[in-house]
């Protein structure tokens, strides 16, 4: 029986985006069905809360300190470990369709392979190993790449230019004239990165990714083992789903998210109880990264803007779910669905109004750290009782999970066990903690965080930087404080648990190799 792995990722999707996770707005029946048939993880955590480091962890099974992609703009070396390469070496057909982002997007000197493939017209590039073998780029013998817009060198942009050139300007321009994340507002409320996009749905990148995935799957033979990573760019900003779909969710009908703090005084009090970079960003006095528009000040965010952004995200999530349904329908039509392990997750979350904030950055709270993760094992391969796993697990376990599905030994380069099939197995496998790292340097502005999630506790240490002296941090008990409004870091009665968590974290964090690799682009 062939073994097939369908790995579906979204970009910047919150845990509560899905109906199966309690989401009450976006209809996500396809992914909900995967959850009903498989294992739904209620606390899945990334190794980093931005794209490039998190995606590098998925591919390598390594923590950020080890793979070295310490912030967006730092490329994963082309010879870095890759679970896709292990699968390819073992005879799997391998594809990555959609957003890769192991290499920077802003690349005027054409330094990076993933930016060159569409121009070259090649499915991949092969490199010679030390012993003379030819191996495909990161183990993928087929790459068709996209990001959130129609500009640049990737396949989707090229397709749009060649087939629908009139559509190029329909998508929101992610960058402004200074090549910074665009602060321009749109829609009905003037919210940043919102646009009413006249593009027909069939031209939008979500449907393009599904089209290309279906096309690739259709070309595989009945007896092929394969690994297909389908990587949707949405619901990452810009929030510009096709206008034809806006009828799905009227922002005026939406409740504000639970994490939104309506009273500005209370909002500032909560932010002030956290390390200084929180309130500094809220007031626009400390912009430390490119993850949000530099010229947008979060304290200007209105309740209606939060509603409109959330409506756009819900629409984007519905479109992704319908694209997933289309891919699964293809598998069913070919009679393969029961032979496919399906894993669904995302790379990191999004504030969407929590704490009065949008976008993401050095903020290790559930908004950005609690992710959707579902594993529907192939019924023909293994009989697994559908369940939920509440033990914290990390995306660092994905590579070992794919090896397990393929019947391979866990690669020696991976730093975590495979995902557990139950809470009891989580304990047996040693899923005791999940570690998350943040480092950013923006022309002299430095922020570094290290976080451990263990049981119901999340503890974040700040390292010395531009606004931290290394003594501040965050400690939350998720059981009592699901919104993370009460920072217990300085509470004497929690000193012992804090110190125990920190000791556990420092003993288990890998040591970063030095010197740190250069940041080659903003994103």
């Amino acid at each position, binding site marked *: 029986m062939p073994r097939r792995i369908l790995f579906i990722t979204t970009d910047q999707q919150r845990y509560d985006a899905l109906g199966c996770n309690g989401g009450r707005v976006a209809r996500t029946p396809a992914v909900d069905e995967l959850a009903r048939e498989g294992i739904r993880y209620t606390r899945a955590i990334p190794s980093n809360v931005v794209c490039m480091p998190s995606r590098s962890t998925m591919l390598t099974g390594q923590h950020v300190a080890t793979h070295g992609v310490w912030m967006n*703009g730092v490329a994963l070396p082309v010879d870095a470990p890759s679970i896709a390469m292990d699968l390819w070496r073992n005879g799997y057909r391998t594809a990555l369709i959609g957003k890769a982002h192991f290499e*920077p997007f*802003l*690349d*005027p*000197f*054409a*330094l990076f392979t993933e930016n060159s493939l569409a121009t070259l017209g090649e499915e991949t590039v092969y490199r010679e190993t030390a012993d003379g073998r030819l191996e495909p780029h990161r183990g993928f013998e087929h790459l068709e790449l996209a990001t959130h817009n129609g500009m640049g*060198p990737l396949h989707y942009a090229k397709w749009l230019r060649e087939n629908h050139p009139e559509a190029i300007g329909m998508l929101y321009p992610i960058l402004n*004239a*200074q*090549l*910074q994340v665009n602060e321009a507002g749109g829609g009905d409320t003037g919210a940043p990165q919102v646009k009413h996009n006249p593009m027909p749905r069939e031209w939008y990148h979500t449907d393009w990714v599904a089209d290309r995935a279906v096309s690739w799957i259709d070309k595989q033979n009945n007896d092929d083992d394969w690994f297909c990573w389908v990587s949707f760019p949405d619901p990452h900003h810009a929030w510009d789903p096709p206008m034809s779909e806006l009828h799905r969710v009227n922002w005026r009908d939406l409740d504000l998210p639970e994490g939104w703090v309506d009273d500005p005084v209370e909002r500032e009090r909560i932010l002030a109880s956290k390390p200084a970079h929180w309130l500094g960003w809220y007031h626009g006095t400390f912009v430390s990264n*490119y993850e949000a528009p530099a010229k947008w000040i979060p304290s200007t965010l209105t309740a209606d803007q939060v509603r409109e952004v959330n409506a756009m995200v819900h629409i984007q999530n519905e479109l992704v779910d319908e694209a997933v349904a289309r891919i699964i329908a293809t598998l069913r039509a070919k009679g393969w669905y029961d032979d496919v392990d399906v894993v669904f997750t995302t790379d990191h979350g999004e504030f969407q109004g929590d704490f009065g904030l949008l976008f993401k950055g050095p903020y290790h709270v559930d908004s950005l750290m609690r992710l959707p993760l579902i594993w529907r094992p192939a019924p023909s391969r293994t009989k697994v009782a559908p369940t939920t796993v509440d033990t914290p697990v990390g995306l660092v376990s994905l590579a070992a999970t794919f090896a397990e599905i393929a019947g391979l030994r866990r690669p020696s380069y991976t730093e975590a066990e495979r995902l557990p099939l139950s809470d009891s197995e989580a304990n047996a496998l040693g899923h005791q903690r999940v570690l998350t790292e943040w480092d950013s340097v923006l*022309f002299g502005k430095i922020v570094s965080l290290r976080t451990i999630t263990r049981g119901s506790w999340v503890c974040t240490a700040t390292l010395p930087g531009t606004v931290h002296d290394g003594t501040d941090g965050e400690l939350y008990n998720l059981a009592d404080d699901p919104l993370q409004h009460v920072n217990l870091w300085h509470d004497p009665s929690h000193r012992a648990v804090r110190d125990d968590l920190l000791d556990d974290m420092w003993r288990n964090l890998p040591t970063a190799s030095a010197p740190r690799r*250069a*940041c*080659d*682009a*903003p994103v």
Partner: protein
Amino acid sequence: MGSVRRHAILAASASEVWAFIGRPEALHEWFPTTATRVEGDKRWVTLPSGIVFEEQIVLVDNDLRRFQYSIIGNPLITQHLGTIDVIPITDRSCIVVYSTNIDPEVLGLAIGAAAGDGLRTLQEKFGKA
């Protein structure tokens, strides 16, 4: 203003390295560009993406072994000064330092990336010290 700096230590004398990289017209021999044209104190550099930068050559100092240039005539780039220094360490080793100040600042990162690529080319040619 974005400010970046990259460096490499090479196993060759400063004069030998300067003889190679101190020629404004030879940039494409080591920097990730596809063509270079020099007329007087102006230089045009073509990037692999097809972008052409027009540059003012500010300084070619064969004594200091310093080259400075500025990207001009580009509506996106409002300020720029690039500097390449070749500094002797011993009579058989030197350090090459590539610095850029630029507005918009994000382009500094991309130019830094290109400089890193160029410096690796120099290390392959002259060897690492």
